[in-house]
């Protein structure tokens, strides 16, 4: 009897969200051969990118005994990832980013032995990595516009200071080259600019956002580069919440904000989301702001997750866009909280009519154990691709999981 019921019990796995029909998750890499730990962390959280009929996932793990960058590629119609291979070759490598550059090619950047490297990847080949930083660098992210514009934004370290650099890249004869390089300057003398995100707007202009510590606490700033290559004066994206604006002795403090992510839709839509600890009792929440004029002006801040998530902290947020629809993803532990176990599930929300939806507990990325650190991409059809880290216990080795969501609207 039970055996006959099993197919019926499986049906909910093919769960219908409002806008996507999700299949069953597949394992990208398992932890069964050699215990190791996967990491999906990097500036802007750009680890998954669709290019034509393919999707590629980049991450760091220590299967070889040291942290290295790995990639897996999957045909959109294939049931799983065909192969996994290592991109980096140094002593240690961290925090990769990926962006598509054509129908079957990606540009990838990562930190390797404290410098920034970049490379071009196709399903068949990887070019020899190019050193973008020629010195200490970290926090690299990427943006492409699909018509040949490629930019890497990264933090250049000089002693205890860090300033952002935009490296415009070009692919010549299949290899990556630096076309231009510019340091981000702001009106305020900043000793730390880090964790950038970048996106090309529908107008073909580059918008970047980052964490800036010039004010004595962290703020999120953004700046638009016009087609002549000039950056507009940086604007603050998060609404500053100090403990009491009138008291001068508190002017250097404020609530925490961190890890901004960016996405661009059509008609000049630009969205920024970040983690914002303006509610001191429950930790960070996902907040955002959007622009309808290609990144020149931003709306008032809007809370992205619904009120059901207010009691717990949200982590690892990022956003993507397809046409006019924005999709944000993150993890939180509203479904279960334990001091002894790492707990978390993957949620997403979308904004299609001016408001963020109720949160969707992503099927297959929830339940016992930890499912977190999600990353997301949307392909040319508007279909979703998600990946996340899964662990059974606090100290257990991890594995990478992937989920496809077919567009239904």
């Amino acid at each position: 009897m039970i055996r006959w019921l099993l197919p019926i019990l499986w049906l909910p796995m093919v769960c219908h969200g409002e806008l996507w029909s999700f299949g069953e998750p597949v394992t990208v890499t398992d932890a069964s051969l050699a215990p190791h730990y996967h990491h999906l962390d990097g500036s802007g959280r750009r680890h998954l990118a669709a290019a034509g009929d393919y999707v590629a996932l980049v991450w760091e793990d220590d299967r070889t005994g040291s942290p290295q960058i790995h990639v897996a590629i999957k045909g959109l119609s294939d049931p799983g990832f065909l192969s996994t291979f290592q991109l980096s070759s140094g002593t240690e490598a961290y925090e990769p980013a990926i962006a598509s550059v054509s129908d079957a090619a990606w540009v990838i950047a990562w930190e390797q032995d404290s410098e920034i490297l970049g490379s071009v990847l196709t399903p068949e080949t990887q070019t020899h990595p190019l050193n973008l930083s020629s010195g200490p660098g970290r926090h690299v992210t990427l943006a492409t516009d699909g018509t040949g514009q490629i930019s890497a934004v990264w933090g250049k370290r000089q002693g205890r200071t860090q300033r952002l650099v935009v490296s415009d890249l070009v692919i010549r004869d299949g290899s990556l080259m630096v076309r231009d390089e510019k340091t981000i300057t702001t009106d305020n003398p900043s000793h730390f600019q880090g964790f950038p995100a970048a996106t090309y707007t529908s107008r073909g202009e580059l918008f970047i956002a980052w964490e800036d510590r010039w004010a004595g606490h962290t703020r999120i700033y953004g700046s638009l580069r016009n087609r002549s290559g000039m950056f507009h004066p940086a604007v603050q994206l998060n609404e500053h919440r100090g403990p009491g604006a009138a008291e001068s002795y508190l002017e250097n403090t404020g609530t925490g904000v961190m890890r901004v992510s960016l996405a661009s839709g059509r008609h000049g839509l630009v969205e920024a989301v970040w983690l914002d600890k303006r509610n001191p009792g429950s930790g960070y929440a996902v907040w955002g702001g959007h622009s309808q004029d290609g990144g020149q002006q931003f709306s008032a801040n809007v809370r992205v997750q619904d009120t059901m998530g207010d009691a717990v902290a949200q982590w690892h947020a990022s956003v993507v866009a397809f046409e006019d629809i924005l999709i944000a993803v993150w993890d939180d532990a509203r479904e279960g909280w334990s001091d002894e176990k790492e707990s978390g599930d993957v949620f997403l929300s979308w904004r299609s009519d001016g408001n963020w939806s109720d949160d969707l507990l992503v099927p297959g990325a929830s339940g016992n154990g930890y499912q977190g650190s999600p990353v997301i991409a949307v392909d040319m059809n508007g279909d979703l691709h998600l990946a996340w880290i899964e662990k059974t216990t606090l100290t257990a080795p991890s594995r990478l999981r992937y989920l496809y969501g077919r567009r239904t609207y």
Partner: protein
Amino acid sequence: MWSSPFSEINRMVVFMLGLYLASPASLADAPDGWDFLAFDEARAQATAENRPIFVYFGRYGCPTCARVNHESLTDPDVRKRYHEHYILAYVDSESGDRLRLPNGERMTEMDLGIRYKVFGTPFFFFMEPDGKTITRIPGFVSAPEFLALDRYVNGGHYRNQSLQEFISEGT
């Protein structure tokens, strides 16, 4: 010492109030005069010396951290006792700086905060050398409270009593 139970809920209320009543701001990094180590270094040293760890989860620009630094951790008795009794670790819970735990797992300071459910800063932990939590206190902690916490942990009372029971006895 404390007239009310030192439950985490009460601490949270104090923590929330403290955020808005915080006083002088430094940048709320680790305070001067304290020999804090990175968390993984502290774990290794604590294991080698079989000593408990005092972990300060802070944040750049955190007003309540600044107040703790200014009002509590400048107390010479607190500083002396904590240096004598604990291996000291400071974690910037917004930092991307990397740590490697004894089991080989690599994580950032931010992710360490997620693992220990650090929903705000400051958040103070007393830990066994293996990283197991003895007790944890969110929000502002005064110098007398730090000294009482030291008596609770260093005196070994945590093995037989909850912190609330210990405080209720007026120890």
